[in-house]
């Protein structure tokens, strides 16, 4: 329960963060997350798309079909105002959690 909650939470934060400045399609979202985390976080399509659809039904992101330079139809996602609003507390919640874990680990190692 905790593991899946954390996984879902980090996935949500990762997706909303990469969409903060750019509208991206699914493959690019996965590629950017992998690149920016130096391979620590990897999204398979099986994990990525259900999460994108979930975020879309929550109206945190919105997808729209676009035609790329090579003529391929792709669905690009961008953050909605609600998504931008959600990202602020989400970031602070996660940073608090990581700080708490660091403190905890520090105590354990002492």
């Amino acid at each position, binding site marked *: 329960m905790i593991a899946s909650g954390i996984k879902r939470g980090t996935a949500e934060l990762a997706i909303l963060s990469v969409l903060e400045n750019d509208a991206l*399609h*699914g*493959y690019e979202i*996965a*590629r950017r997350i992998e690149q920016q985390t130096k391979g620590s976080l990897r999204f*398979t*399509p*099986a994990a990525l*798309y*259900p*999460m994108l*659809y*979930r975020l879309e*039904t*929550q109206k945190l992101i919105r997808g729209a079909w676009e035609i790329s330079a090579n003529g*391929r*139809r*792709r*669905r690009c996602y961008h953050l909605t105002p609600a998504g931008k609003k959600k990202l602020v507390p989400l970031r602070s919640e996660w940073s608090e959690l990581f700080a708490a874990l660091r403190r905890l680990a520090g105590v354990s190692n002492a």
Partner: protein
Amino acid sequence: MPDWQELVSQHLAGMALDADEKAEVHAELTAHLEESFEALRRRGLLEKEAAHRTLRQIGDWQSLRREVVVAKRRERPMKKRMHQLWVPGFLTLTLSIVFEWVLYKLGFQPRIISWGAPPGTLFYVPWLISLPFLGALGAYISSRAAGSRATVLLASTFPALALAFAFLVMSPIGWIIELVTGSDLDFKAVAGALLVEGIGWLLLPCVAFLLGGLFVQLLLSRRSSPSTVAID
């Protein structure tokens, strides 16, 4: 290059979504797989290896299909349980009762098989033969509603489980009534009779329903298995 569109359509067929939504999901996943494949090819991988690695990203198609439907529908847990378990379960139960009644009306009689001393076990063979189909129907409806493997099997065996539950609840009540009314009840004989009846009315039907459910599971997992797709 593999036909990714065909592959995605084949593996994600039967998703319980609107036609438009389904087409969008198919197109989106197809585009993802195409890009992934092309990126691997650009890195110098041979076509077969690139296709294999691209497919491996998906893993379990059945689970992906389920997750997509759940994410798209975003139903409340109670409503989800209704579609995945209660509706297929009660439908299977109703159909099995109706079918039994129809068979009886048509003149198909159950056979009583006795091993030595009575009571014997009642085998309603024509009815038992129909149960795997009904179990399969329940499992199919549940899986269409993105039920998990356990829920799908639970939906397919629902009639037998419901009957077992009724037996377990009703029997002690019946015994209490018999005791209160002062009837001279031979508990050992009643328990023996219930056990024997349970074989014909609970155990065998449960196995028959389960066979149908397992068949649907097998069929869906084979359709979803990457190994069934030829990559050329």
